[in-house]
């Protein structure tokens, strides 16, 4: 079975992870598989595309916390784009936005990753 969340590589050492549907506890395996897939490309940054996420709850936030912890251990930067105003607010409330930079769209998210050294 193919993973639910696909990955794309828009430029060197940057992987975009396309999340879709509900972001809740039951998305854990898909999320971990997609991150493992992304990590195998040894990216400097992982960008979460949340444009197609129409529902997120506290268990989804827990998934993002887990993902963030893992990315930090791996030394990869995590950012996101495509969040509605409501979920942007939730990122602020939970302070996730302090660790996951939220961009308006893909070009700004991908473009803001510093060039590899």
């Amino acid at each position, binding site marked *: 079975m193919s993973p639910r969340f696909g990955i794309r590589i828009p430029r060197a050492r940057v992987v975009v992870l396309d999340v879709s549907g*509900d972001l*809740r*506890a*039951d998305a854990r395996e898909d999320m971990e598989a997609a991150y493992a897939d992304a990590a195998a490309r040894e990216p400097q940054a992982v960008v979460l595309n949340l444009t197609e996420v129409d*529902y997120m*709850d*506290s*268990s989804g*936030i*827990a*998934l993002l*916390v*887990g993902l*963030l*912890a893992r990315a*930090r251990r791996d030394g990869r930067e995590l950012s996101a784009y495509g969040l*509605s*105003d*409501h979920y942007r*607010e*939730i990122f602020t*409330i*939970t*302070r*996730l936005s*302090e*660790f996951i930079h939220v961009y308006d769209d893909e070009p700004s998210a991908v473009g803001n990753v510093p060039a590899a050294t």
Partner: protein
Amino acid sequence: MQPPPVPVEQAEISLSPDDPLLGYLAGIAEPVPVDRIPLDTPGVRALREAHISLVVPLVTSGELVGLLSLGPRRSEREYSTDDRRLLQDLATHAAPAVRVAQLVREQEGEALARQRIEQELHVARLIQQQFLPKELPDLPGWHVAAHYQPAREVGGDFYDFLELPGGLLGVVIGDVTDKGVPAALVMATTHSVLRAEAAQLVSPGDVLRRANALLIEEMPPHMFVTCLFAVLDPATGRLRFANAGQDLPYLRTAEGVVELRATGMPLGLLPDMEYEEKEVVLEPGQEVLLHSDGVVEAHGADREMFGFPRLKRLVGEPVTGGELIDRVLGELSRFTGPGWEQEDDITLVALARLPALAGSGPLPVDETVSLPRDARVLAAFEVVSERGGERGALPLLAEAIEPLGLPKGRRDALATAVGEATMNAIEHGNDCRPDLSVRLVVAATDTAVLVTVTDRAVNGGGTEDVELPDLDAKLAGAQSPRGWGLFLMRELVDEVRVRDSVGGHTVELVQHRNGTPP
């Protein structure tokens, strides 16, 4: 010169109340020399032995109230006719006075006895009332009612509600044979024994078996306790019960009224008794009535008994006729008529499962209690307790609040908070049991939207998020990545209130409509 007075001799003579002498004296009602009494009874012999020569009966209203007994005349002559007339006059005046004195003494004695009895009744009432529940359990989706009406000579009725683990409710109704302080003390003992046993045992049959074994040791002779013990699961309507000789409860079903029968001997009578355990499920709209024998054994003016058939008919009457207990008491009062001296305690306990909610529409009373007076209910619905079930509630919430025209930010924030509350209710409150549902009520006032989310508190209520989530701690692995639910609710809506009751746990979310508290 007068001779010095000779000391008067006094003699103790006791007469048996059934000595024929007394009847004879009451009959002749005049002074009579002892040697002319035509009887030879122990009383007459006693008079002779005490050297009594003349007896003067004190008779009033044909009743012998005393006797003057005189020894021989000092002059050693017979008592003259004048003497006897004088004595008769004395007797005529003395007899009513003696009678009055006797009555006064009797009444003083009776007043003392009455006072003692009143005092005892007072103590018995105090003991009994000490052990009656102070308030009714608050069960979402149920209406619980109870009525206790003591007879003047306090009988031994009692009832009790017990909060049991897992949101279950124990219900007790019982009656101690005998009255007054001894009955009240046995009632108190039974109450304590049942409470102690019910806390440890789930099975009503086991509770009664253990209670019987303990009470056998404590019970005064010739006393016993009838008692019904039931355990209700408010979430499912399941009622398990065992009965130690109490009158059978009546259950109103769609098919008619049925008796809830389970066999067992009264408590405290015989050792090693077993109690049959039965179980029914109360469906929405059904009601069960527990009652003490003071109801069916009440007598009307013509000595007819109220009886079981009459009570059974009342239980089966359409619910539109008002509360069941009120209907029973109304009928009882018409049956016994005015000036009725209540013979025995009367105790009634009714458990009604409220009809299921269908969409919006009128709500059961207990769910609207917490809503402000001016709140309008916009919608009420239930979601099944399965993971992700909260997603189903959100379109219904959106539809219900749509006419209010809330700003989008406020609407989204409320939706997320309701989703969190519902998820907690499904996963923690109802432990994901598919037979249980979570009930949501959406209401509005002019200034705010209110949403209540109620679960069955199968794990005893309370909420899982106690520690304030801290992202740094979570990233460092010092806190679980989860635990955001209550925090999000508090951040996203203006007020979060939590209410716990027997068999239910409710979260109330309040969102002000213009975004700032009024």
